[in-house]
Structures are given as C-alpha cells and as structure tokens.
C-alpha cells in the first residue's frame, strides 16, 4: 500500500508493463493474462486509499523532461487527496469492469488486444489524475483519448464502429488543441508548466488573459467530457464493447474534464466570466441531453445521453463555484452509471439486442441484474436514501444559490432524468418478454461486479461529510426545501413513465407519431450531428481535394514545371539565331562588335 502510494511512477509503470505482458502473451495465455488486467486498477485503488488513509500527499516525483539552454519543461507525478479520490474511483470501477469483461468478452477471439488496451487505459488515466505538471496531464489526456479510440473501434470489421472511433478521437482532439493553446498561453505568461507554480502564479495573471486561459482549458474539458457542442461523439462511442462504455464513457475518461477544472480551480476562480460560461454550457447540456434521452430506443444510447446530462449537472455545479458538490456527484455518478452500463451489458449479453422494444420482463429471468439495475436507476433519478439523492441535491442547491433560473432548469432536467430512467426500466424489466432469445443470468463473474458496484451506489450518499473534508470543503447540511422539491419532481417523473408503460408496448411505436416533428428533433439530438457532418466534414474533403488539384498541382507545381518549359521555349527562340546563312553569321559578328564598341564608348564618356 505505502509502496504504491509513496511512488506514483510505479502506479503508472505497472499497468503499461502489464499491457505489454498481456499483448505479448497472445491468445495462448489469454485465459491467464486476462486476470493480470485486474491487477492494474487494483494497484491504482490501493494507492488512492493509501493516501486517503494517511491523508499525507506524496511528494511530487518531478523530472526535467525537456530542458535546453536554461529553460526547462518539467514533468512529474504526485498524489494529493483530489488525485486519491479519482484513483479510487478509477480503481474500483476499472476492477469491476475488467472482471465483468472476462465474462462478457469470453467468446471474443481478440481478447489479448482488449485486455491489454484496458490495462493501458488504466495506466494512462492514473497518469492523467496524478500529473503534477500540465505536460504529464496532457500526455495522459491524449493517451486516454487514444485508448478510447482503439477500444471504440475494437470490432473494426463493423464500418460504423471504426467511423465512431475516428469521430470520437477527432472531436476530443478539437478540445485538446484548445487545451494545447491554453497551455502555450500559460507557458508564455508564467514561463512554467508545473501545476503548483502555475496555480501559485494564477492570481497575478491579468484578468483578460486568465479568462482566455480558463476558457481554453474548458474547451479541452468540454471535448473530453462531451459537453455541448462537442458531445456528438459519445452516443456513437456506444459502438464499442459495453464494458468499455461503462469504464471510459461513463465513469473515468468523461470525468477527466470535471477533474481538470477542479485541479486548475485557482485559475478558474479568478476568471468569473469563464465560470459563467461553464455554468451556462453545463445547464444547457444537462437539459437538452435529458430531453433527447427520453425518446431513445437503444438502451445504451439512453445511458449515453444520461451521462452527458449528468456531466452537465457537474459542470453547472462547477460554474456555481461548488467544486465539492461537483466532485461528490462525479463520484456517485461514476458508481451508479457504471452499474447501469454493466447492467445493460449483461442484458445485451443475454438478449443479443440493444433495442428496448424487443426486451421486457427481465426482472424475473435475470433477478441480480434486475435488482442492481433498479438500485442504479433509483440513485440516478435522485430518489431518497440512495447516493444520487444526496449528491444531486448538493448540486441543485449550489446552482440555485448562484443562478435561480439555472436551478429551475436543472430541476426540470432531474424530472426528465427520472422519466427516461424509469421509462427504460418499465419496458426492459417489467411486463412480458417480447424478444426471440431466451435470456438468463450471466455467470458469477458478471454478477459479482454488479453487486460490488451496487454497494457504493447505495452507501456513498452517507459519506458526504468525510468526502468533503478530504477535499478540503466544509460539509453543508442537506437543504430540506431543495430536497423536498427534487424528490417530488423525481416521483412525478417516475409516475409519468409508469403511465406511459400502462398504455402498452405499442405506445413506444406511437411515440413517434404523437410527438410529431418534436420527436424527429429529439431523436436526432437536435440535428447537431448531421449539421456537423454536412457543414464541417464534407466541405473539408472538398476543400482539401480542390486545394490539391488546383493549388498544389496547377499553381505551385505548375510554377516549377512551368519555369522548365519556359526555359525550353526560350531555347527554341534563341536557336533561331543559328539560321545557317553565312552572311547572317558574319553580320552578327560585325554588329556584335559595333554594339559592344558603342556601349564601351558610352560607358567611357
């Protein structure tokens, strides 16, 4: 424990080594090596717990990564309480996901690649959270993006999967470029990229510049955490195996954006305008994503939009200045959303389809998955007694204080959250089974993680006080008024879903017609995706090929080849002088002499 906690580098090196081992092991030893993939997240969790227990942050292991002629760019790792919390989250969720994957991916032939990438991801994620320098953070940031690209495109034979993988990487890459510009601005202004130094120097940076830096960092965060308008990649990322969605696209990677803002909080603190932007984007994303989730028919798409919406909640809390509430909601969300995703994974594994219209009545056939799913949905909707209630309450309370209008929007969003959560629950787990397969409960290796994740989903709510202290915030008491309002709103959502269910399964069919045009808008997530492809991606190809055909081939290359042809032409012209007549030659000689003579005289005057 102390070995791991004291030495952050090992926490990063171990997963990379394991990944190499798993990949090297190949298909023969996969049944053994796949268990190695579990060791990596366990190590991360232990390191986190070690620091949290002793609450003594480890000294930064810094190294002059790039130094030349006096100026130095340092890179380093350190664990403080914030990192420890993230390490625990990543560790716990990753362990459950790996164990679950052993069952879920049992009959896949490319398992060595899968588990190696998972180990690699854990290493990269822990590097990201443990970074004590923005450079190391950026490295972890991009490596996590690369792992998500490789994992989304795991079943590369499916064209849609490989397209989704590229889309995910490119959209997050736009955010990364923004962040890179922020880093460059920081480097120019403060002359250093080590986080403690930058945060110390933050107050002295001019108001204007610090706002720009904060906004640029937020662009990076928005890209990674799929906030509007950079959210288009997350729903498509569901093409990847479900455990991957659970780990990367529910709990860890998408939370990196929130972590970044919390880690760089001193910079955001002195940039109020930036915080307002964060608040607005958070609220907008929370509400709209929730509306879209209500009409989705693919179980994973519902959860994907739900994640985008919940992240919107967190960013709203950050915008309102409540980093504690945001981190607490991030933690609880990681637990119950991972649980829901794994639950959906076990359902998909059983019925071999993701369309909720072909499911139904699975509570009886898959009791463990059913009950854990209910716990997860209960927490997601913020119903009392479970973790969601406490963390969501903290978020809504802080946002209400900061901007009442935003608060009301969030309350509306939580109503929609309850609605879509239970809409899926009724149609998947209640009534009679409509599909053709014969669903049954997965093995222990799939059910154990569900149960393991159910525990924090239930219990975490009660540890808000110690959680807040560890992050250095004082624990506010539950605000009774806000609690009451949010519970009633959640119950309304549930009842609405129940009413919808009462009307029978064909009701899902008629949703499209009854809602009319609104349904189309919601289903296609406000057409943002098609807008991007039509107005950004397609023109890029046209511009590129035009540039190539015209500018490169004709203008620049033309100029080069043209000069050659021009000289040849002059050659032919000049050779006209050699006509072959003797008198021309003789006169050329005479005229040549006279011309030279006159020039000489004229020069000599």
């Amino acid at each position, binding site marked *: 424990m102390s070995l791991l906690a004291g030495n952050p580098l090992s926490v990063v090196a171990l997963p990379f080594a394991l990944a190499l081992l798993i990949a090297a092991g190949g298909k023969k030893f996969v049944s053994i090596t796949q268990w190695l993939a579990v060791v990596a997240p366990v190590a991360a969790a232990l390191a986190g717990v070690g620091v949290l227990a002793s609450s003594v942050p480890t000294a930064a292991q810094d190294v002059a990564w790039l130094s030349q002629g006096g100026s130095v760019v340092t890179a380093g790792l350190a664990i403080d309480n914030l990192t420890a919390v993230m390490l625990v989250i990543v560790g716990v969720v990753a362990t459950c996901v790996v164990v679950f994957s052993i069952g879920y991916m049992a009959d896949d032939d490319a398992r060595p690649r899968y588990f190696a990438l998972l180990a690699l991801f854990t290493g990269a994620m822990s590097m990201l959270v443990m970074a004590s320098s923005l450079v190391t953070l950026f490295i972890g940031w991009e490596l996590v993006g690369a792992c998500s690209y490789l994992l989304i495109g795991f079943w590369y034979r499916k064209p849609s999967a490989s397209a989704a993988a590229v889309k995910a990487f490119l959209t997050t890459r736009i955010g990364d470029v923004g962040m890179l510009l922020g880093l460059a601005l920081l480097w120019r202004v403060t002359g250093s990229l080590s986080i403690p130094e930058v945060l110390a120097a933050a107050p002295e940076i001019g108001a204007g510049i610090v706002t720009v830096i904060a906004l640029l960092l937020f662009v990076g965060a928005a890209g990674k955490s799929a906030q509007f308008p950079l959210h288009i990649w997350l729903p498509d990322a569901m093409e990847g195996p479900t455990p991957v969605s659970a780990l990367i696209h529910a709990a860890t990677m998408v939370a990196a954006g929130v972590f970044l803002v919390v880690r760089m909080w001193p910079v955001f603190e002195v940039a109020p305008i930036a915080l307002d932007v964060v608040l607005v984007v958070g609220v907008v994303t929370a509400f709209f994503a929730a509306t879209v989730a209500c009409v989705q028919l693919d179980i994973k798409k519902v959860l994907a939009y739900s994640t985008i919406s919940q992240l919107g909640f967190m960013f709203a809390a950050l915008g309102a200045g409540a980093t504690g509430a945001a981190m607490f909601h991030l933690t609880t969300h990681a637990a119950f959303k991972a649980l829901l995703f794994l639950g959906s994974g076990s359902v998909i594994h059983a019925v071999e389809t993701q369309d909720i219209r072909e499911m139904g009545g699975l509570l009886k056939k898959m009791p463990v998955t059913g009950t854990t799913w209910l716990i997860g949905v209960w927490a997601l909707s913020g119903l009392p007694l479970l973790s969601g209630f406490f963390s969501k309450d903290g978020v809504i309370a802080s946002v209400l204080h900061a901007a009442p209008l935003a608060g009301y929007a969030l309350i509306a969003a939580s109503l929609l959250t309850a609605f879509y959560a239970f809409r899926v629950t009724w149609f998947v787990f209640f009534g009679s089974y409509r599909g053709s397969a014969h669903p049954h409960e997965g093995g222990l290796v799939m059910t154990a993680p569900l149960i393991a994740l159910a525990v924090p989903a239930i219990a975490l709510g009660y540890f808000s006080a110690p959680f807040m202290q560890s992050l250095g915030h004082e624990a506010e008491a539950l605000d009774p008024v806000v609690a009451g309002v949010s519970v009633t709103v959640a119950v309304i959502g549930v009842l609405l879903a129940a009413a919808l269910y009462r009307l029978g399964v064909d009701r899902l069919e008629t949703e499209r017609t009854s809602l009319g045009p609104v349904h189309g808008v919601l289903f296609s997530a406000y057409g943002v995706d098609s807008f991007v492809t039509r107005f950004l991606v397609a023109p890029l190809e046209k511009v590129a090929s035009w540039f190539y055909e015209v500018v490169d081939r004709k203008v620049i290359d033309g100029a080069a080849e043209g000069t050659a042809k021009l000289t040849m032409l002059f050659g032919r012209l000049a*050779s006209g002088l*050699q*006509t*072959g*007549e*003797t*008198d021309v030659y*003789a*006169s050329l000689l*005479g005229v040549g002499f006279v011309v030279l003579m006159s020039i000489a005289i004229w020069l000599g005057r």
Partner: protein
Amino acid sequence: MSALVLCAAVFGLGLYVVLTRRELIAVLAGAELMLGAANVQLVSFASMSGVPGESAQALALMVLVVAAAEVGVGMAIIVTLSRRSARSRTDDLQEVNG
C-alpha cells in the same frame, strides 16, 4: 589624314562584299580586301605618329604572311566544297543549323 579615310573606305567596301555577295570566292576576296586595308592602315598610322615605327613595319610583314596562309586554307576549303558537293554559293550552305 587621307590614308585613314582611304583605308577605312576600302575596309568598309570589303565588309560590304563579304555581307552581300553569294559566291564563296567573292566572299573570300572581300575578306582579303579588308585584311589588306587594315594592313595599310597599320603602316600609315605608324608613319603618321612620327615615332620610328620599325616594329610596326615588321608587324605589317607578318600580317602579309598570315594573310597568305589564310588564303591558302580558304581556297582549300572552297575547292573541296565545290569538288565534293558542287556547292560554291553561300545560300546553299544552310544544311547545318538549329
């Protein structure tokens, strides 16, 4: 002074002949005419300048020798031309060009 004008005139005449006449032999004659004129010019300048011009005279003699050699080679070329391809006019000597 008159020698200068005379020689220059003859030199010009020679040049005119070279440039306008088509027959090779006439061109050769023209060239020799120019050479002769220049030679006379050399001697006349030497005498004009008053300085004892014996080196100029020696030089003039040498020019005469060179002129003779030149005519020899020139005629040789003209003769081979007319014998081998019966061409003696400059305007049918235009095969090699470009």
